[in-house]
């Protein structure tokens, strides 16, 4: 149990990245339209986020500096300010989707209209940010989020033809879809896996937990358990959709359809488990994005931050998170579709991704920060390859989004 709790930070970070409200739906959409033919992208994304989250955790443990502090220090106020604006747009848009997602998940469980749940959801998120100790927060949401393993269980219960499922793993565009749409979803999945607030949250979480150079093994374990698990669950959702929704010709456009394959596989009990998982995952992602908003702003401007301090000792940090939640409730009050909101974060990710991962790589090689813990050659080689992929994906994302009308 203690071992499991030690990796709660990694699990929560990965849930916020791979299994937030927008990604839950995207994974089901991908499964129902493309089968397993995009699973390789999730695999590539898992390796990428593992490499950079490992570096950001290592920098935080050895030097005590969280990721946005080193972004500001290496890029200077202008480029880091641009990154801050883009990152805040991504995190706040995702926060809007998460608060809306918690409300939708509660509607699944209660049949009370989701708009009534929005203020309740936002208040609950704030109470946790305000009062609950960081370690308890990550342990509870991380453990409850594990209920999403129900999707992997459902795949087994559906008793698929494993040979056929494995044959779908080859990257190929299905006949009824065009290549532009395929690549749009490929970039959306890759961007979700590598979304920048994961490293903000992971490195700042390391500081919250008081990591030192002695905790490098903990950091590595968090990375190696959390992100592959997130990727596995993400692929399981796609597999459920590919096995049930694709043959039935059902187009996914709402969160409630996620439960259809699960209900067929495991009945009401498994659906109940999945709903617990969805609520925990969206709640966890809401906490992660709200905290990341506070972390990135505070670290850029040099404000006192962290849940390990009394709220009054990190006043501007807490005020920033309160304002982010107020914005989220205000946006949701316009009756906008919370899931559709996340599609536009791709535009801002295009700016934020390269400007986040480049300084991490540079500082991970700086002996002033890292002492003898600087990156090895293999790590640098992999990270450089990923930086090139990130830039290519970032540049291609916007024209693909316009050409395919966001996956139309």
């Amino acid at each position, binding site marked *: 149990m203690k071992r499991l709790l030690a990796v709660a930070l990694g699990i929560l970070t990965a849930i916020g990245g791979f299994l937030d409200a927008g990604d839950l739906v995207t994974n089901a959409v991908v499964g129902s339209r493309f089968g397993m033919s995009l699973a390789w992208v999730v695999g590539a994304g898992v390796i990428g986020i593992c490499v950079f989250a490992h570096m950001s955790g290592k920098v935080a443990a050895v*030097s*005590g*500096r969280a990721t946005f*502090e080193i972004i*500001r*220090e*290496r890029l*200077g*106020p*202008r480029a*880091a*300010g641009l990154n801050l604006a883009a990152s805040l747009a991504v995190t706040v848009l995702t926060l809007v989707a998460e608060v809306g997602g918690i409300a939708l998940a509660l509607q699944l469980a209660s049949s009370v209209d989701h708009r009534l749940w929005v203020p309740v959801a936002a208040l609950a998120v704030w109470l946790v940010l*305000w*009062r609950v*100790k*960081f370690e308890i927060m990550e342990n509870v949401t991380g453990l409850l989020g594990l209920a999403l393993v129900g999707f992997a269980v459902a795949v087994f219960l559906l008793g698929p033809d494993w040979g056929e499922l494995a044959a779908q793993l080859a990257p190929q565009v299905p006949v009824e879809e065009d290549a532009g749409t395929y690549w749009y979803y490929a970039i959306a999945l890759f961007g979700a896996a590598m979304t920048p607030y994961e490293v903000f949250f992971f490195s700042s979480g390391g500081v919250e937990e008081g990591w030192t150079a002695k905790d490098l093994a903990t950091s590595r374990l968090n990375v190696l358990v959390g992100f592959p698990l997130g990727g596995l669950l993400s692929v399981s959702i796609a597999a459920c959709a590919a096995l049930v929704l694709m043959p039935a010709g059902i187009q996914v456009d709402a969160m409630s359809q996620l439960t259809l394959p699960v209900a067929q596989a495991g009945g009401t009990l498994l659906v109940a488990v999945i709903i617990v998982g969805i609520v925990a995952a969206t709640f966890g992602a809401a906490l992660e994005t709200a905290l990341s908003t506070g972390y990135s702003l*505070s*670290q*850029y*401007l*040099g*404000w*006192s*931050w962290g*849940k*390990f*301090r*009394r*709220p*009054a*000792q990190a*006043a*501007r940090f*807490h*005020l920033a998170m309160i304002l982010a939640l107020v914005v989220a409730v205000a946006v949701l009050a316009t009756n906008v579709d919370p899931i559709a909101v996340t599609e536009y974060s791709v535009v801002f990710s295009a700016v934020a991704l390269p400007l986040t991962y480049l300084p991490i790589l540079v500082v991970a090689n700086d002996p*002033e*920060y890292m002492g003898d813990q600087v990156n090895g050659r293999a790590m640098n080689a992999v990270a450089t390859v990923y930086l090139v992929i990130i830039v290519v994906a970032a540049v291609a994302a916007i024209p693909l989004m316009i050409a395919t009308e966001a996956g139309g």
Partner: protein
Amino acid sequence: MTGAAPLLPEPRQPGRVLDARLHLLDRQVLDVDSVPVGTLDDLELGPSGPGAAAGSPRADDPPLDGTTTVVVTALLSGPVLGTRVFGGRPPASRWHRVLWRHVTDVGTAVRLANRGDDLDLTWTERWVRDHVVGRLPGGRHDPDAGP
């Protein structure tokens, strides 16, 4: 050439050589309790010598002639960030200074000998604490003290 002696190279200084851009600018400034008080947004330079280190440059100061040694007199933070992003030069009276003599260490962060709450720089933190966050129930609750 006007016949003047060629410029001599800078004499080697004892101690550690700091590159302002690489080692100082944009680093976190931490107080004596390791609480962040700001980001090192800019540096204030002034002539060295008696009386010079404490004051800030003024319009009626004699112009520097190239023979005066210039030293860092203060760290600047706060609104001066705007000039780093957009350029320009606001009146020096508007800057928040932390005198260089309070600096105790320059590493991956710049450490001060004072408490952050005693600096003018952190007035926004205190304002938000006194008017908003400290007034909400539980705002002064210690997270380590249990529920």
